């Protein structure tokens, strides 16, 4: 009798355990969700947030509805005239409400700073004599690379981007990035005030099905130079400013979207030359002249342009999206006309 009771208890215990495991499996199955309609999760923008190519949108990344969680990995490759951007990261969307992202960007600067690097090597002895200190510019004679880590978060505040076709209220989200640029020395040379900084944004997104169009307007509060790839702020300080960004997308098919984007950029270092150990290189230009390098003078001036792109995004299924774009990024540091193709892949799981 006692034995039976014990067995009964044991049976009850194991039944409870099985039930608990079963229940937790159900919970896991219910947590994972891919219930959004194809393409409505958007793609991954270069900072890693859900959105377009260069602009974060109010949509929460991934295919989870408010019933669950879904994430993705993304890789972006943009070979420009003088730079190549590789951006790789992961993002998770929670209950169509909250989003977290991490992205590692690497900007190889190709031949951009080779000339400068060689000039510094050439005049290095001279500069050392003048300043009496070793000069560290962060510029290698060849293949200077800028690396930046970006952590992002976004929360959907109100609105429904897709289904509220009978009013004009957009879906609105607020978000932010923390960006940590690793090439401190080069950023000093480029006269950026900071190498680490945060940005905040508010985004409004709405799909207008009667005209097959998606509109997104974002205001980003930022001091970034080239999204932070060349630092934050300039000689006049690191004050942030509000910069508008717009994405317009036309829905061609349920799995294909084309569009254009514009992002306002700052002018923190416009017209500035590069800076070596606090010696303004504009003052070095006569020296360059005497060295027979006078034609280099103009190439020392930095500028920054607004970014434009035109894209086509293709969503063969909910596990993969491919974005092809032509990016027109204008002046980047000392090199003009930085235009080129852009490829971004997103794998959702």
């Amino acid at each position, binding site marked *: 009798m006692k034995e039976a009771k014990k067995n009964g208890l044991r049976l009850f215990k194991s039944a409870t355990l099985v039930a608990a495991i079963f229940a937790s499996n159900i919970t896991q199955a219910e947590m994972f969700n891919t*219930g959004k309609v194809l393409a409505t999760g958007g793609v991954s923008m270069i900072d890693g947030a859900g959105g377009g190519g260069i602009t974060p949108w109010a949509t929460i990344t991934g295919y989870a509805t408010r*019933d669950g969680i879904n994430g993705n990995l993304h890789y972006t490759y943009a070979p420009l005239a003088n730079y190549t951007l590789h951006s790789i990261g992961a993002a998770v969307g929670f209950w169509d409400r909250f989003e977290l992202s991490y992205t590692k960007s690497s900007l190889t600067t190709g031949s951009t700073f080779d000339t400068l690097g060689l000039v510094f090597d050439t005049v290095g002895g001279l500069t050392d004599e003048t300043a009496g200190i070793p000069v560290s510019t962060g510029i290698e004679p060849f293949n200077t690379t800028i690396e930046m880590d970006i952590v992002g978060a976004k929360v959907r505040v109100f609105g429904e981007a897709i289904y509220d*076709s009978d009013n004009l209220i957009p879906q609105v989200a607020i978000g932010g990035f923390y960006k940590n640029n690793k090439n401190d020395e080069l950023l000093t040379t480029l006269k950026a005030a900071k190498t680490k900084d945060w940005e905040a944004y508010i985004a409004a997104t709405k799909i*207008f099905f009667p005209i097959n169009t998606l509109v997104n307007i974002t205001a980003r509060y930022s001091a970034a130079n080239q999204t932070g790839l060349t630092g934050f702020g300039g000689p006049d300080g690191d004050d942030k400013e509000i910069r508008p960004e717009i994405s317009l997308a036309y829905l061609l098919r349920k799995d294909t979207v084309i569009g254009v984007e514009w992002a306002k950029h700052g002018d923190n270092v416009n017209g500035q030359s590069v800076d070596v150990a606090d010696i303004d290189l504009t003052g070095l230009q006569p020296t360059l002249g005497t060295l027979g390098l006078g034609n280099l003078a103009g190439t020392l001036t930095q500028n920054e342009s607004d970014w434009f792109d035109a894209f086509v995004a293709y969503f063969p299924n909910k596990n993969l999206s491919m974005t092809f774009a032509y990016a027109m990024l204008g002046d980047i540091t000392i090199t003009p006309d930085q235009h080129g193709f852009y490829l971004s892949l997103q794998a959702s799981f």
Partner: protein
Amino acid sequence: MKPIFRTIAIAILAGTAALPSFAQTGKTPTLPALDDDALEQWGGEEGVRNWVESLFYYIMLDNRINHIFREFGNIERQIFLNTQLEQLVLGGAVEYQGASMAAAHADLGITVTQFNAVVEAAYNACERINVTYEACNQLIAALAPYERVIVTR
């Protein structure tokens, strides 16, 4: 407040306040408005019925949602009523004899995931009957506001 902003604000408020009441009384007042010839793009009543039949074909093949429609019962009647409703919201001069979308779905506990599954079936049905994607989006826009009353969980 400037008059233009007041007008926009009133329009937004009116649109929001009028929510479920516009249901099933006529063409859905989307912003921007549906095309005048939205129903013609669909091939009129016959085109709409073809789509509804295809819609239910895809719904009944989708294990995420077919049980809901099966339990609701009488698929033929659902197809009949949906054909009326879809013509109506596209601007057709027809009478809808069914219950309001809110009443019909009140006790079903539909999730947004399930609602989205029907939207995917809707796009598949458009492709099946060769309605253009643009025309398909006219109907998607016309039905989209029902999400607020159909999704209750």
